[in-house]
């Protein structure tokens, strides 16, 4: 999987070599370049697969203006790790359709991968995975966030998502009365 750096040959030769390269170069919104295995990118990302198949990959770095360098680094890191782990048939099939395919628990390395991310990096990665159509990465990151919600009060859930409370006190009190069961501390 070594990158063909190009050796200053004639333009035509270079082009042929590039078509055969087994990596693609991606450029983040802030101009940083990342290389990722073409096979993994095509397998894990429907958007990249489409770009590769459609020949819209730019050798000088395919612009991904919506994705910051930190998130893109994580995407690439994930792709490379995924390429190195043995892809199980289950994983591949689960990425076909999230809506209908049963959700597969993240594997150990995937768990570790998302666990080490900062809060912001995790959320940025979710967005990046969504943008690139990376269903499996989306599953894994969403799973992580749903775990972060475990046992959390509405206040704490707001912290997880960094959002404002837009309920009035009266509304909350009304809900509390109506759905008293949800406010028991077992």
């Amino acid at each position, binding site marked *: 999987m070594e990158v063909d750096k190009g050796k200053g040959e004639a333009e035509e030769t270079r082009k042929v070599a590039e078509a055969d390269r087994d990596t693609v170069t991606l450029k983040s919104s802030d101009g940083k370049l990342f290389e990722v295995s073409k096979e993994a990118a095509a397998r894990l990302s429907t958007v990249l697969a489409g770009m590769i198949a459609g020949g819209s990959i730019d050798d000088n770095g395919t612009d991904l203006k919506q994705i910051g360098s930190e998130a893109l680094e994580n995407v690439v890191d994930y792709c490379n790790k995924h390429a190195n782990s043995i892809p199980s048939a289950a994983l591949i099939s689960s990425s076909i359709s999230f809506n209908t395919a049963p959700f597969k628990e993240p594997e150990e390395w995937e768990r570790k991968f998302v666990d080490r991310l900062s809060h912001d990096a995790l959320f940025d990665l979710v967005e990046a995975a*969504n943008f690139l159509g990376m269903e499996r990465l989306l599953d894994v990151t969403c799973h992580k966030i749903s775990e972060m919600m475990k046992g959390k009060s509405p206040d704490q859930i*707001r912290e997880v998502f960094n959002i404002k409370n837009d309920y009035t*006190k009266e509304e909350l009190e009304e809900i509390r009365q109506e759905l008293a069961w949800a406010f028991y501390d077992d």
Partner: protein
Amino acid sequence: MEDDFSFQGVNQPFQLPPGFLSLGVGAAGGVDYSTSPILLPMAAPPIPMAPPLRSSPQLPDEILEDIFVLLPPDDPARLLWAALACKCFARLIAGRDFRSRYRQHNSREPPMLGFLANLIDNAGITRFIPTTIGGGHSSFRPALADHDRYRAHDARHGRVLLTQITGLLPGKSKDADVLVVWNPTTGELQRLPLLPRRRHVLYWNAAVLCGSATAACDHIDCHPGPFTVVFISMEAYAMFSYVYSSNTHAWSVTSLADLPDDILHESSRGALARNALYFMLRDETYVLKYDLATSIISQIAVPQRPDGRSLLLMTMEDGGLGFADVDFFGHDLRLWAMEDDHPEGVGWILRTVISLSEHLPPRALRSSPDAVAFAENVVDTSFTQLPDDILHERSRGALVAIPQRPDGRPLLLMTMEEGGLGFADVDFFGHNLRL
């Protein structure tokens, strides 16, 4: 754990549909909720929110749904808490798309959140008893866990049919009993008008079911919608069926038939199978069939089982009628299925035998077990773990279980047992109640 909410009068049902759904519509924009108008002087400027907080979530709706769909269904409070984080979440979670996705995602093993027990203290209480899930109790509680002086008769499609006990001897004061339909999800209690010929009723049984055209509804979240109550009454010389529709808020007498030789088994819960309701007769030799489409009542013989105890009508996995019983020695739970297309009319086959000792701890079998409950809308193999003998160390009295989820999937469980003395402190080995 204890519910300290005062009873909402039956004439004042909750006007608000399930939970947060009703909220958020009238909220004024731009109000700063971090201030309390009561504590601050009127002139005080609102305290600004911390700047980094977003008023709308960073992630798009479909991703939020991806996340929420992974919240475990056995603890519905989690979904609710997410909904209480902000109105945007509430709208997502309450939305039809999300709910159907959530059900789809969790369709394999819907949890049983609890059941209803008819306890005998204070002349009768219908109590919701949460089941044990993992280490703790399932979080779902109806707005009112106890219905004092009520008895649960039936539960289906997210509604429960209760009778209000007005006399000291509930069985003897039928003319004064009042039927009430309770929606445990919303807490709404709807009192039905008295039957037109109520004073003539000698024996009866009744069932509640979704009121929308039967075939069209999957009964997954129809519980706030219209319902039907079918009341079969044995009177002095004939049998009547009364059908109540919540659309018209009125009863109609829809059919009559000659009396069978036996009387209705009043504490044995009926079952809905295909398009008919079935009620057991007292001797357990015949079942009454009430065809919902034609309103015709007929009788069906049940097999004689010299070694069987009381039987419990149930809906089988394929939608047909069946019943469960426990063998004489209390070893096995047996599921029998009715075969409509039997060459000699109706036949019954023993479809499944479940060894109780394999599924229950020995102490559960110390007192003689009986089949008391079954969960409706349960599919596939979930059945095998089912009701068994559930409770009954000291509890007697009918038992109705109604697992409910916030998405409204009625996973009803129901039951029966002739009343005796004891009650309270039901030791029902919750962990075995899981489906």
